[in-house]
């Protein structure tokens, strides 16, 4: 059930983000969502792309450093306290979040938040019986 995320090393200077997007455009890959963690000097670009293997290959051929990471996409009800409820469940299972980013898709009454756990399989097992909906790859990229 984990989603494959691409992580890229980018320098924090003009043009470095557009260089990534240019490669994806040339190869006709669509970015479902992205997040950028940046410092003054460099950043880590995280991308969700359906054809992640092809995209990785294209980016690596273009000289980028790319890593594939398993992340979980959890749906979060789009009302006050929606996220708080989810996080309370994670706390209960002692699951610490390395990083997360949100986006909306599909139905209007919910958002999707991408979570990076240290051990995604362990997180899946822990959350199995909880009232949390995990978005599957097929659904996310449909």
């Amino acid at each position, binding site marked *: 059930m984990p989603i494959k*995320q691409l*992580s890229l*090393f*980018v*320098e924090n200077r003009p043009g*470095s983000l557009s260089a990534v997007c240019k490669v994806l455009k040339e190869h006709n890959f669509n970015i479902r969502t992205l997040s950028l*963690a940046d*410092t003054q*000097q*460099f950043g*880590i670009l*995280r991308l969700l792309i359906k054809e992640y293997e092809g995209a990785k290959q294209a980016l690596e051929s273009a*000289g*980028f*450093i790319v*890593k594939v*990471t398993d992340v979980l996409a959890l749906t979060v009800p789009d009302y006050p306290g929606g996220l708080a409820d989810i996080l309370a469940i994670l706390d209960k299972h002692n699951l610490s979040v*390395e*990083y997360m980013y949100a986006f909306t898709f599909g139905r209007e009454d919910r958002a999707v938040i991408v979570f*990076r756990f240290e051990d995604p399989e362990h997180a899946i097992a822990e959350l199995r019986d909880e009232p949390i909906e995990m978005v599957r790859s097929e659904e996310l990229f449909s």
Partner: protein
Amino acid sequence: MSQFVIPNRIFDPAAECMPCADRAGLQATHLRRTVEQAQKIPFYRRKFAEKNISPDSIRTVADLQRLPLTTKQDLREYYPFGFFAVPQAQLARIHASSGTTGKPTFVGYTQNDLKLWANLCARFLVAGGLTSDQLVQVSFGYGLFTGGFGLHGGIERVGAAVLPASSGNTQRQILLLRDAGINTLICTPSYALNLAETIQAMGIRRGELALRFAHFGGEPWTEEMRRTIEEELGIHAFNNYGLSEIIGPGVAGECAARTGMHIQEDHFLVECLNPETLEPVADGEEGELVITSLTKEACPIIRYRTRDLARLYRDSCPCGRTTMRMSWVKGRSDDMMIIRGVNVFPTQIEEALLKVDGTAPHFMIELTRPGNLDEAVVKVEMRQQEFSDKMEEMHRLRDRIGREITAITGLHFNVELVAPNTLERFTGKAKRVNDLRNLKP
């Protein structure tokens, strides 16, 4: 106008103004004795045997050409005391230069060596205006570094009063300068610029200071820096040269005429060689200085390759000294950097990177001097195996590289992680240093 910046004084006229022919005879005698003394060092004993050299075979200074060269690497291989020619009981002091592998290079001194050293420093100090009625502040670090204790001995030899401030705490240094009424300052030229700036910032007027002279060394500097320092502090600044492997400061220093640094030729033979062919270059042409000590006991050194590039002048100087002079040091014949007075080689950075991850990535060192102090940046290309999607791990990687570099060099480097294949590639010898400090005289 006088041809001298300050009154022309000579500490040891008999030695410094000796007729050249007499000096050549003295040098030959001393060279023979040095070869004899050096035979007590296994490295030289072996080298001399290979080349069939004995003390008796040294007749004139020209015989120097037959003697083997000594490199920093040689000194390093005999760590710690393999280049000492005297038993421990005869040692009076040990200093050290910064090493390239974390280990220093030790140099030993006998009582006679210390006396000699003080005399040599006294010569250039007097040439640059020091008199026995002055107060001198030494803002070099007192420690293994030869600068602090070396100059200290020279000042005492002249009979002036020394204030051993040592390095650090700029505001306090300035307080001492002003309140003690210091006449002469000893430090690195870049630190002098720093002091000048801080003096202004503290609102201290030039009239509050009794400072008139300064003697700078320990790092490369330029005529332009001299002008700035002299203008800002209202002083006369003099250049001196030395390196710990030879003795420390005292190998050469400027006189009142400032036509170059007079080499203490009765104690050192200085050659200027083409660093590629190792053939002598003509007078006035740039080459690598190769130095032989003539009177040292504990650590006699034969034809040491300093890697410093400079020019030698033999024409006469209006000051009356008959010694050969050397120019400002224009650069290095190897890739050693001098950062805040500390010697650093790119191989040390490589070594640090190897410690972080088995194989060293591409890197480039960038040196700048935004204010008066050197800033060092090392740019390291990211590689797949070190890259993480977690920011925390990236920071940890960067910090670890920084720590390893500091552990080896003793200096802080700003570490920048850069994208792969963005640093310049070299087909021949890699150029790892981009020096933007503008230090060329």
